[in-house]
């Protein structure tokens, strides 16, 4: 409270929380504004990925056989493993937010580091998958190699595969950078029970990236596995 009192003296007005900006009346209102803004950003992200999902839907209708065949060439074990890792990172992120809500800075830092670690594992597996595709010629372009009668259409599947998983991976890299900044802030003791909005907003972003993968996994890896 001494911080707040000193702050109030400096301003010559009523005591308030040191993290409360002057254009908000209460901490609750300030946090609601942040959450509202974050969700509006996520709304634009939904539409950003939505357009790409539509492209996928259209080409899948046109070239279903090629999509089914190319999808079977994706590594289901690695894809499934990554799904577990990413959903696991959402769990650790939820624990990080919870630790922040209960005022445990050390807990917040620990869970955030674990979240970053799981994010890095996901990206590492993605590197293995991508490099395998370069080795066997499953990268669209002049060096594309396939014995399928649908080779040309398979390139469209792989174009969408690289676009969708690539944009997802970019979001993860951005997420890990944000997590690193938030971890540093948490380690400096910047958050407590009454102020931890940045941890919560980072959580919303990280869970959104998980959401995108929840759709990408069945759409890319499981087009038609029963043949």
């Amino acid at each position, binding site marked *: 409270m001494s911080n707040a009192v000193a702050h109030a003296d400096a301003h010559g007005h009523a005591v308030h929380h040191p993290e409360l900006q002057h254009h908000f009346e209460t901490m609750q209102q300030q946090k609601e504004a942040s959450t509202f803004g974050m969700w509006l950003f996520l709304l634009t992200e939904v539409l950003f990925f939505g357009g790409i999902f539509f492209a996928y839907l259209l080409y899948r209708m046109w070239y279903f056989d090629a999509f089914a065949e190319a999808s079977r060439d994706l590594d289901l074990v690695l894809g499934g493993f990554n799904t577990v890792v990413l959903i696991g990172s959402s769990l650790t992120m939820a*624990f990080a937010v919870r630790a922040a809500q209960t005022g445990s800075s050390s807990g917040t830092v620990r869970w955030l580091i674990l979240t970053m670690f799981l994010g890095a594992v996901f990206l590492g597996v993605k590197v293995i998958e991508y490099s395998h595709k370069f080795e066997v010629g499953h990268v669209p372009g002049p060096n594309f190699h396939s014995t399928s009668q649908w080779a040309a259409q398979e390139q469209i599947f792989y174009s969408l595969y690289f676009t969708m998983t690539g944009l997802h991976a970019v979001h993860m890299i951005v997420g890990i950078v944000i997590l690193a900044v938030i971890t540093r802030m948490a380690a400096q003791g910047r958050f407590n029970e009454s102020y931890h909005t940045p941890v919560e907003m980072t959580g919303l972003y990280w869970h959104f990236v998980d959401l995108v993968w929840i759709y990408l996994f*069945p759409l890319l890896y499981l087009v038609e596995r029963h043949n």
Partner: protein
Amino acid sequence: MSVHIAPKSLYISIFGALMVLTAVTVAAAFVNLGNLNAPVALAIATLKATLVVLFFMHVKYSSKMIKLVVATSLFFLTILLTETLMDFATRGWVAIPKLMH
């Protein structure tokens, strides 16, 4: 309005449910469900997404304004997908029965 702090056990249960649903979607892909393979995969993914949004993203405990933004994003996503699909479908370029094979 105080902050809602969910118990750790709730998050672990949600994680468990997401793992089970992941296993179910993989298993379902290996069964020939005819035209239903794609709808089943999307239904499971949507169920998983709903769990993440409601619990991990705290929307269940959020204000009506936040719920409205979430609903709005789905509304505009629906417009994006259906209106564009209608355009392509009515050009006679897409054989709609081929939607799921």
